[in-house]
């Protein structure tokens, strides 16, 4: 059998069903690995080992008594520390929130508990999912398992680093401008920003109510689909939630690529911004892989990437400002510097700016929908450069916007980041696949077929 810490959630479920593995045995192996590796990776803000062990013992009793709650029963998962977990502080990695003990679970956490998943603890994040990576926060920034001197991406940094290092197979992240897909890209894992509204945000610290998404992260599209199955569903307490009726994402991930129409959005990384040559070469390889498997690859033109970024940040800045305005006026020193700067930009945006952004947003969404009239999925860059060194503030600032994630926060389409290579310096490269709204199953199938065609996703970082 594969080393226990590298088992995927799907493999864990199969091993439990065959009585070849027990939840307690798996958790003990993961806790040992966490003890060994997390002191240098900082994936956890708070590990709740005792609680997790109690949950593992309960899962073991239920599973071995034949009372399975499904494929996540007894599977350990990490939770980004902006999600409420009853009884634990939701710190948002901010001095302002250290005593903010949650009294009830976030909607998605409650769903995970009901599915029998084992909550391991709270994971590292940029402050309020926006200010980072930073060294002036209560908890140190997570490190990249491929090279701990490098940024693991953010803001769901602990989720990405911990999955890639084999500390846990699954994690929840949030994505308001790439915060699931950036760590997925930087850490060489798979991360999905689902269709807007497919997954509830109730009990998750908000940034921007029209661009915030909750997303599943794992080491394969198959596991991402499994996690999405557990967390997707209508929640009347989230005004953005949609009653899609979608389920069974992980039931059948096979897809015949013959005849699939792939629209390659080249201008994002060739004209609007300039991708690192290794990223560019990796993207061409992804396109070639789809073509080899029988797909038809054509070039698609969407609105310019910078325009998407501007619209996303004007909307996000405007929507987040009211949440933080009073504290930024009275307790600005309790924020880290990056949060302070980024959150305050909303103070200087007008109603006119916001309305123009929302108007342009509807046109951009229509443009992407129109593209889906001639292609089935889109292929775009994810990160346009490999992750830089985490202590190089100048490089972090320079590479902050070298990405193609914001377009799909603006439009709400489902978008998944998949590993697509390794740079000469040994860091992950990635690509992004996008599908029509509420076709999350299609984008996961395409990601799964790609992963099985290349197996980049099965590479493991040297920290292992």
């Amino acid at each position, binding site marked *: 059998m594969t080393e226990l810490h590298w088992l995927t959630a799907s493999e864990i479920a199969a091993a439990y069903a065959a009585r070849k593995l027990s939840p307690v045995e798996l958790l003990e192996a993961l806790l040992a690995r966490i003890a060994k590796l997390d002191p240098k990776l900082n994936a956890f803000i708070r590990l709740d080992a005792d609680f997790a062990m109690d949950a593992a013992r309960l899962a073991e009793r239920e599973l071995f008594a034949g009372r399975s709650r499904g494929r996540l029963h007894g599977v350990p998962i990490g939770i980004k520390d902006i999600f409420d977990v009853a009884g634990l502080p939701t710190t948002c990695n901010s001095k302002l929130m250290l005593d903010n003990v949650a009294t009830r679970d976030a909607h998605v956490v409650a769903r995970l508990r009901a599915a029998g998943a084992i909550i391991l603890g709270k994971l590292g994040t940029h402050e309020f999912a926006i200010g980072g990576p930073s060294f002036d926060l209560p908890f140190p920034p997570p490190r990249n398992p491929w090279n701990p001197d490098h940024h693991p991406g953010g803001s769901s940094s602990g989720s990405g680093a911990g999955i890639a290092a084999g500390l846990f197979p699954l994690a929840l992240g949030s994505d308001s401008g790439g915060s699931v897909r950036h760590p997925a890209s930087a850490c060489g894992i798979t991360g999905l920003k689902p269709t807007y509204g497919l997954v509830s945000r109730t009990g998750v610290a908000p940034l921007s109510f029209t661009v915030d998404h909750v997303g599943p992260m794992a080491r394969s599209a198959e596991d991402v689909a499994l996690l999405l199955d557990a967390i997707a569903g209508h929640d009347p307490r989230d005004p953005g939630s949609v009653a899609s009726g979608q389920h069974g994402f992980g039931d059948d991930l096979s897809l015949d690529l013959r005849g699939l129409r792939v629209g390659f959005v080249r201008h994002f990384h060739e004209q609007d911004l300039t991708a690192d040559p290794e990223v560019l070469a990796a993207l061409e390889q992804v396109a070639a892989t789809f073509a080899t498997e029988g797909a038809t690859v054509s070039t698609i033109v969407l609105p310019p990437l910078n325009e998407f970024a501007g619209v996303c940040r004007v909307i996000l800045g405007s929507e987040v400002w009211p949440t933080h305005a009073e504290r930024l006026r009275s307790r600005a020193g309790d924020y880290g510097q990056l949060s302070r700067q980024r959150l305050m*930009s909303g103070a200087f945006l007008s109603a006119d700016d916001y309305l123009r952004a929302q108007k342009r947003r509807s046109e951009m969404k229509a443009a992407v929908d129109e593209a889906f009239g001639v292609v089935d999925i889109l292929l775009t860059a994810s990160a346009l450069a490999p992750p830089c060194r985490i202590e190089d503030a100048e490089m972090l600032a320079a590479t902050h916007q070298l990405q193609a994630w914001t377009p799909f926060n603006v439009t709400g389409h489902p978008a998944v980041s998949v590993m697509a290579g390794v740079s000469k310096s040994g860091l992950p490269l990635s690509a992004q696949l996008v599908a029509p709204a509420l076709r999350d199953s299609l984008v996961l199938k395409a990601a799964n077929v790609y992963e099985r065609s290349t197996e980049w996703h099965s590479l493991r970082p040297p920290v292992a």
Partner: protein
Amino acid sequence: MTGKSADTQGPDEFLLGLIRAAGLEKTFAEYPADVLAALRGAAQERDKMPAHSVESR
């Protein structure tokens, strides 16, 4: 808003007016560089959007 005077000579009256309107005088006194960075950030993102009429359909 040009931001130029803020970079080189301190904020002009127009920028101070924006800061006052946002209720950020105290924050500006404590963290002037951060407030000015936020001002610049807002202007940069706004400038990425095309001029557009909200009335058009």
